[in-house]
């Protein structure tokens, strides 16, 4: 990508970038980088049948990071005036602690080599449209939902879109830029039946421009928002205990993200805190299992042309044929382990230093069908919607709230269940997977990972059978 637009946007020149890096390294740091950001975020909210609130938000600034060994100095400036940026650079420089001299500014290595592929080319920018153009979108979505189920007493629909212009420069002189669009639609519906209420949420989010809004997408969201609501009203809390669990394809991937994915992030392993510390090269689960984290899925919420350290987007296997083959690295951990960064250095905004984060995390397909997996269970549960997962990185213990699912009795789905938790241990659950389906689905909901900072991610999984997990019930 030609960086002249971004240099103009932030009113800086390449020699000035070099001066900033030199100031950042003035106390003896090994490496420094700059992360410029200009983001606009817009939202419209429909409640009680009308779009009565909305707004836009502008956020701009530059983050400056200095590394000395594994140590980090970080500061940022909301102004891109040189004196303010130099002040931030000097604050970040403190980490090196010495009184060293400024190195000579590096030249720019921008636009050398093959251009990075664009995983989110935009046909129509959000910023080129008037806000009023999107109001009928939410009204149409509400009409679709109400037409599909008369028990819908409240519909809250939100459309949000953002565009981020990013420019990154580092002490080796690499200059890269990225334009990141994101559009999201969320519908929350309250249903009422015989004096009882239930709620359901459906969402879609893509790194796309205005072209993401189609009737087909709205239909898909509306269908999902009303799907399974009969079962939700009829659902019971089953008797708890340890039992086999079949995870439904798609959204169950959040369990993979929380219970296993975080333990593969290299910062936890570098510090010895993860249950997978020191286990690369070891077999940790059945040979039929491969798990990847992928920044290259076109238009995916977790896609990255570059990560937030200027490393190209890529697909990284953490588990290949049952063997732990790689952690997810940022530049610090990659240097620590003597490997190449995997493009997982991500951050919420210029206010945060990058750390190893997931992108789109999923398990690859196996060979079983969903019906085979269910048929193999005499007594257990099938789960198709999770939320509120949490994991303890050191112990690997996780808990997930099951929003909806079914009992499995004698190989068949029977009574619907809801409002229960499953609890287990990540490595043990991974080792206890005894069947992997052939129906991998990437869930395109508005997943946001909250490890210290919020970043957009997505997740996916085929149907999977875990031979025993603790299910909380009555």
């Amino acid at each position: 990508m030609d960086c002249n637009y971004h240099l103009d946007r932030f009113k800086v020149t390449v020699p000035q970038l070099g001066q900033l890096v030199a100031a950042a390294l003035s106390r003896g740091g090994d490496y420094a980088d700059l992360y410029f950001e200009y983001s606009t975020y817009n939202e419209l909210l429909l409640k009680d049948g009308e779009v009565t609130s909305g707004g836009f938000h502008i956020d701009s600034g530059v983050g400056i990071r200095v590394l000395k060994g594994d140590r980090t100095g970080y500061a940022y400036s909301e102004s891109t005036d040189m004196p303010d940026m130099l002040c931030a650079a000097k604050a970040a420089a403190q980490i090196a602690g010495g009184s060293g001299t400024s190195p000579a500014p590096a030249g720019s290595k921008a636009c050398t080599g093959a251009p990075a592929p664009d995983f989110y080319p935009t046909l129509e920018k959000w910023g080129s449209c008037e806000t009023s153009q999107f109001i009928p979108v939410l009204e149409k979505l509400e009409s679709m939902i109400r037409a599909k189920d008369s028990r819908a007493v409240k519909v809250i629909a939100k459309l949000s879109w953002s565009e981020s212009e990013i420019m990154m420069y580092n002490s080796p002189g690499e200059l890269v830029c990225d334009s990141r669009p994101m559009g999201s639609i969320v519908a929350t519906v309250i249903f009422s039946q015989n004096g009882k209420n239930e709620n359901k949420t459906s969402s879609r989010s893509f790194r796309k421009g205005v072209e993401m809004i189609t009737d087909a997408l709205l239909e898909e969201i509306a269908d999902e928002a009303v799907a399974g609501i009969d079962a939700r009203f009829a659902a019971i809390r089953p008797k708890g205990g340890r039992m086999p669990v079949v995870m439904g394809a798609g959204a169950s991937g959040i369990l993979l993200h929380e219970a296993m994915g975080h333990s593969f992030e290299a910062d936890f392993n570098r510090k010895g805190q993860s249950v997978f510390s020191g286990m690369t090269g070891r077999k940790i689960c059945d040979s039929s299992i491969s798990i990847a984290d992928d920044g290259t899925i076109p238009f995916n919420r977790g896609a990255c042309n570059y990560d937030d350290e200027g490393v190209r987007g890529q697909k990284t296997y953490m588990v290949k044929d049952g063997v732990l083959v790689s952690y997810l690295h940022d530049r610090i951990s990659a240097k620590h382990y003597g490997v190449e960064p995997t493009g997982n250095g991500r951050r919420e905004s210029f206010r945060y230093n990058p750390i190893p984060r997931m992108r789109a995390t999923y398990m690859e397909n196996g060979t079983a069908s969903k019906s085979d997996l269910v048929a193999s269970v005499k007594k257990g549960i099938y789960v198709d919607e999770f939320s509120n997962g949490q994991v303890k990185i050191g112990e690997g213990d996780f808990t997930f709230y099951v929003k909806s699912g079914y009992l499995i009795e004698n190989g068949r789905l029977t009574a619907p269940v809801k409002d229960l938790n499953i609890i287990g241990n990540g490595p043990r659950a991974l080792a206890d997977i005894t069947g992997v389906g052939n129906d991998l689905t990437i869930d395109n909901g508005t997943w946001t990972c909250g490890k210290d900072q919020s970043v957009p991610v997505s997740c996916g999984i085929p149907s999977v059978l875990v031979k025993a997990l603790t299910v909380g019930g009555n």
Partner: protein
Amino acid sequence: MGQSNKETAAPGLISGEEMRLAESCMAAALRSGADQVRVSLGKSVLDSYSMLNGVLDKVSHSADRSIFLYVFADNRYGTFSTNMLDEAELAIFAERAVKTVGMLSEDRCRRLPDPSLTALDAVSGREAGLYDIGYGRMDTGRRLAMAEGECIFGKCHAPEGCRVISEECEYSDSVDDNYLIDSNGFAGRHTETSFAVCSEITVEDRLGNKYSGYWWDSSPFLATLKLGRCSAEALARAVRQIGPESHEGGRMKMVVDASVSSRLVSPLLSALNASSIQQENSFLKGSEGKEMFCRGLTITDAARTPGKPGSRLFDTEGVATEERDIIRQGKVGMYFTNTYMALKMGIRQTIESASRPVLMPYRCDGGEIRPEAGSFGAKEIIGLCGDGIYVTGFNGGNCNSTTGDFSYGIEGFLFKDGEIRNPVREMLITGNMVQLWNSLLYAGNDARECTRWQIPALCFEKVDFSG
């Protein structure tokens, strides 16, 4: 640090010039056609020093400023923000904001609060008593020394059979300054400092199993920050978890530690939010004035307790806070209602959210509770209970906001005959919030001083555990 230190004049972060910028932004929005405008100007500075295994690992300096603009025009409403605080750019920003509001649908309930409800006593920002002028004397050396002072890595002796894998400690301090004005003439300022330390320690037992413990302290004032204790407490918490045993579960008494008990109060306060009630998304719809819970449950919003975390004189609309009973002896005393929801629902306006909720001590047996803070805590309650599970952490879970049904993962300890026995793991609790709070047996007086929500140790009977 004495009281005089807190009262001495201090400038805060927002300059007179920046206040004028906020006013010019409001004027620009009015000029562009807005009927009413509210502007919130916020500035903050945060410094943190993180240590890994006794060595400095990360130094971070953050300085933020932003303007939030709330526009009411032709019965329409929108919210906007920017961190680009140049006067000319702000005028363009305000004009764009008003134009955007004009595209939205009408909603006649959108307006600024009645001026008679807004606070008049938040002038300097220091009235809530949360500003430590010692903040201005903080420098790199002092901050680093306090971060280093938390470290015990390499100096502590873990119990035989386990070793410390890692120790992460952090010292941080911050100052937040907020200036809120509206076109009805309201002007209010809130300034507060915060000092915090925390530590997380991971240990490994003989079998290679890892356990982590976390502890923290914070205070608006450096002098009352409990320094040098976090790592020892985090280590003790990690070690206590070694050797957990499975438990078959059942219906038992549950004692919840004061450090995590707010998790069970949060769904109640969320369900009392008028917006949730109006959207049919609250299990406490229609509960105002009704006795919904056990008579032992009283929660007061002590919003005006100068010098204590959570104290504030006005909410984000500028509405004055006051001491209120949220729930008294099991009866719901109020919904949290802002101007918009009050007009929309035709109910009385209160405040948009709780500031400093305080759950009062209680004994179901009518026994005496000595008034000294901490005299009736988890230890005493366990002694009274006999057998049950002592919950020291929640691990995931959720409460269905529409029905109140909940399920949470827990960690903690089995106790028998009033004595704590082994740690338990992979356990869950399930139930319904209304039923749970009707089974309250005890509430302690050991809420942590450093928290905004003053929720003590709690004890409930007949809680369903799964293991």
